[in-house]
């Protein structure tokens, strides 16, 4: 039995690096400091869905093959493809991503990562207006106002508040956990009451419709000392339950609400009573709180990037931060989902200049979201082969995109038999990044952290980086042979 300390958790963009694992007989048996997601990954990754050997589809059925055969077949598909897409990358390490860019360049394909269905719009806005941001420690030490907009860290980034924002002890700001503890207890009690009530009466009495916009939490809480927590969302999430102030915005009205706050921050009068269903007085409360803090920060998630307005929502959010910086100190940060989606953007950018949706088909990198992302290419039905790694587009992409992906040869590299792998022609099993293989990942604030190898992968199962390198090598051999043949013919 051995204990491994300071392990970086390969689940979400918070990239907590204080996990303590107990390893026994090449298996993780105990997880300390981790959240539920972290524990379930470390304890549950060895499921029955694990792929044990490379698979190739023959007559509609998967047949186990040798690594060499799978590599050759995959390389043949890519080397002969005219316009392949290489998608995924967010749940693997930077070392594999580096090889990925080289492979995409070699085969003249479209390199894209999961940001395209996630924080891609945020990147577009950064390219429009920039982004005033900081690392998470800066927030821990200094921020006295956090605003979570369109995201629910309590569920999606469970230790975010505890490690980086409201509940952490900073040099200049104290933790606000005691007050929240009472609040959470009260909320839990209330929930129990409500559910008991529902159990009893659900059959006899129809539940009253919740109003589209309910304002909860007395505004006075915004006037308290110390760290303040504001949540703006379309529903009362777990995080919202703990907030000092929660504003429930009508779905797809974030843009208006944010513009209204922006106007208020700029001292404009609003001549309407409500914006996005929210009375203007409440927005004024929020604007006052924003302007009067010492250091504020807005975190935003899919609720902003993937609702109506998309990158325009982020555009106005960042513009609001620009305005606020003329009054006080403010930062903004996207809540990145996958543990290394930030790394995928970063690696792609340093090698090609562009963060996602990079088209190498002309021999140089080209970037034009709306034209060159894998989603655009799939929906136009133009790609003629796909390689998917460390992502599951089969389960998450629009039907039409998946339909085209399946029509053309599909190569999948993944530890698990996920939805995409089930549709694939060639499947490579890979080692779990951050458990069975180390490497580097980037946190949501672009801080690089080392991942640790804590157990050996099953026999014969290679890391992503190794598989990609072999495919790349084989592609080069096949291309060289083709060239030689052409030369001979000529």
């Amino acid at each position, binding site marked *: 039995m051995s204990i491994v300390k300071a392990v970086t958790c390969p689940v979400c963009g918070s990239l907590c690096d204080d996990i303590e694992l107990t390893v026994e007989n090449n298996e993780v048996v105990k997880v300390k400091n981790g959240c539920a997601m972290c524990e379930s990954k470390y304890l549950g990754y060895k499921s029955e869905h694990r792929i044990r050997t490379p698979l190739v589809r023959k007559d509609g059925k998967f047949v186990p093959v040798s690594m060499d055969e799978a590599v050759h077949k995959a390389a043949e598909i890519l080397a002969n493809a005219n316009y392949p897409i290489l998608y995924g990358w967010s749940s693997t390490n930077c070392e594999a991503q580096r090889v990925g860019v080289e492979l995409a360049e070699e085969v003249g394909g479209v390199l894209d990562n999961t940001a395209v269905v996630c924080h891609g719009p945020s990147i577009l806005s950064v390219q429009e207006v920039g982004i005033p941001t900081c690392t998470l420690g800066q927030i821990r030490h200094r921020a006295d106002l956090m605003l979570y907009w369109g995201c629910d860290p309590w569920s999606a980034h469970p230790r975010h508040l505890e490690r980086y924002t409201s509940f952490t002890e900073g040099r200049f700001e104290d933790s606000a956990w005691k007050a929240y503890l009472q609040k959470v207890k009260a909320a839990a009690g209330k929930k129990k009451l409500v559910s008991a009530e529902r159990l009893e009466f659900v059959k006899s009495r129809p539940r009253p419709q919740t109003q589209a916009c309910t304002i909860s939490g007395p505004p006075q809480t915004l006037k308290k000392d110390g760290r303040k927590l504001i949540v703006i969302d379309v529903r009362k999430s777990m995080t919202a339950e703990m907030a000092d102030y929660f504003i429930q915005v009508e779905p797809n009205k974030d843009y208006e609400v944010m513009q209204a706050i922006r106007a208020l921050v700029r001292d404009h009068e609003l001549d309407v009573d409500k914006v996005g269903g929210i009375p203007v007085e409440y927005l004024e409360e929020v604007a006052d709180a924003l302007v009067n803090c010492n250091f504020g920060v807005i975190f935003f998630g899919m609720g902003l990037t993937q609702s109506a307005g998309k990158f325009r929502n982020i555009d106005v959010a960042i513009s609001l931060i620009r305005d606020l910086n003329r009054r006080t100190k403010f930062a903004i940060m996207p809540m990145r989902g996958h543990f290394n989606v930030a790394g995928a953007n970063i690696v792609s950018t340093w*090698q090609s200049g562009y963060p996602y949706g990079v088209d190498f088909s002309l021999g140089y990198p080209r970037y034009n979201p709306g034209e060159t992302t894998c989603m655009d290419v799939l929906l136009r039905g133009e790609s003629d082969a796909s390689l998917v790694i460390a992502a599951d587009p089969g389960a998450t992409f629009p039907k039409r995109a998946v339909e085209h992906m399946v029509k053309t040869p599909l190569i999948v590299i993944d530890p698990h038999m996920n939805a995409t792998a089930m549709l694939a022609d060639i499947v490579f099993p890979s080692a779990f990044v951050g458990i069975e293989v180390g490497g580097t990942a980037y946190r949501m604030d672009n801080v690089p952290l080392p991942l640790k190898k804590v157990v050996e992968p099953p026999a014969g199962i290679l890391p992503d980086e190794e598989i990609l390198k072999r495919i790349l090598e084989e592609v080069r051999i096949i291309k060289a042979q083709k060239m030689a043949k052409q030369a001979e013919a000529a």
Partner: protein
Amino acid sequence: MAEMLIKNGFVFDPINRINGEKMDIAIKDGKIVGSVNERRAKKIDATGLTVMPGGVDIHTHIAGAEVNTGRLMRPEDHVKDVVRKTPLTRSGVGYSIPSTFVTGYRYSKMGYTTIMNPSMPPLEAKHTHEELNDTPMLDKASYPLLGDWWFVLEYLRKGDLTECARYVAWMMGTSKGYAIKIVNPGGLESWGFGRNVHSIDDEVPNFCITPREIMCGLAKVNKMLNLPHTIHLHTNNLGLPGNYATTLETMRALESVASGDKPVAHITHLQFSSFAGDGWGNMRSGAEEISKYINAHNHITFDMGQVIFTDTTTMTADGPFEYTLYELSGHKWVNTDIETETSGGIIPFHYKRNNAVNATQWSIALELALLIEDPWKMFLTTDHPNGGPFFAYPKIIAWLSSKKARMATLKKCHKKAQKKSLLPSITRELTLYDIAIVTRAGQAKALGLKEKGHLGVGADADIAIYNINPEKTDIARKYKTARRAFGNAAYTLKDGKVVVKDGEITQHVDGKTIWLDVQTAEQVKVDEEMKRRFKEYWTVEYDNYPVFDHYVKVPSPITVKADV
């Protein structure tokens, strides 16, 4: 093994006082040697060509978190300059923030072989090193940003120089850095709450220390540690009218640390710190005052920070300065504050000839370079990409070495800037020997890189050969020829291998990453107390903070014995 002989070139090697002599250079196993077997050695015929040590750049932002965010935010910069994949080289994009591979290729094509990446936040040092691994053709090193690091502020305030020195030594090894970088000392910590310091005696909020104390303290620490380079300083009030006074004060403050003629500081991109006037309306050059001081003192070296008239991207750890630029331009603005260490900002910027301020800036850098008499004090940079992209260096060489060239440009500048410019009164023209000093020898000397910047026996065989015949071409008159020649080296040799021929890459090589292994008598104690403090200051674990050895592809550490 691999022997090579460069025959008959006009050699300019200022460190060894060789000024255009016709001679042969012998190479064996990547190093310069006294002689080789003439028959066996591969020969390069350099008859009628200029041979210099490979170029050294003391200050160029080419890798790391900040540069990469610049790349990410500026697709419009990339789209006008794309680079195709070839059988030998990787594809990429160019212009003001080139992708890593293209950066390496373009430097190499200009005959450069060593570059210094001047701003590395230690927390994100892994990122910098990952990018440097992907920057081929060059030897490189980075300067960790230490001027506003809480450990430094706290120990200097306590007056505990020894402990401060130990931590700086620890940080050099931990971040795999090369020199102490100080940016707007005190200003970056203040920027954490949106404030700044405005003179070298302003107190930093919450820390009770002044920029003067930080600069002088770290300069002393630098001496105690015997680091090969001096402190590398970006002054307070950078980029603001009237700041030449601050710069003068800074230089005077550092006199207290100096002893003898050995430099104790390098003030970088001096142009941005030499503005006179009290507002943008009457902003003018402070080059005369600054250069007068510099000509009378020897304790500091400098680089230009030349402005190029083009669209570029400004990026610096000086967050408050970038905020000022944002207020001025309203352009897209990136700010990134790094916990307990530093900050950073990025703004795209277009320097225009017909803008009086920009044109004056252009003039200031040249005035400084020409008025400072000793070329060993003032080096050629653009503070890439802040003043302009590095591939404009040949233009600057032309301006420095030809009055005709600079007057041709000045004539096209804003009238107000023309009238105020000192350039018409300056007749000095740098010779090829001077150019070799300001582009390689002087920089290598200031950096303390003993095997770079010269062609003496034992030096690295990093060599640039340019298509200039000093007997036939007067670069002062034929400045366009010089410009072409310096932009496309006839040959570039890296560690004795020909990597560029006639301005084209002939082979892809990985350069080395240089860093300092500073050995102190007593090391920083890494105990539970240190780890606890670490946990308080940063949001990452102590165990995950260092740049591990595997983050450096071709390591080349230099061991330094410290006095503490």
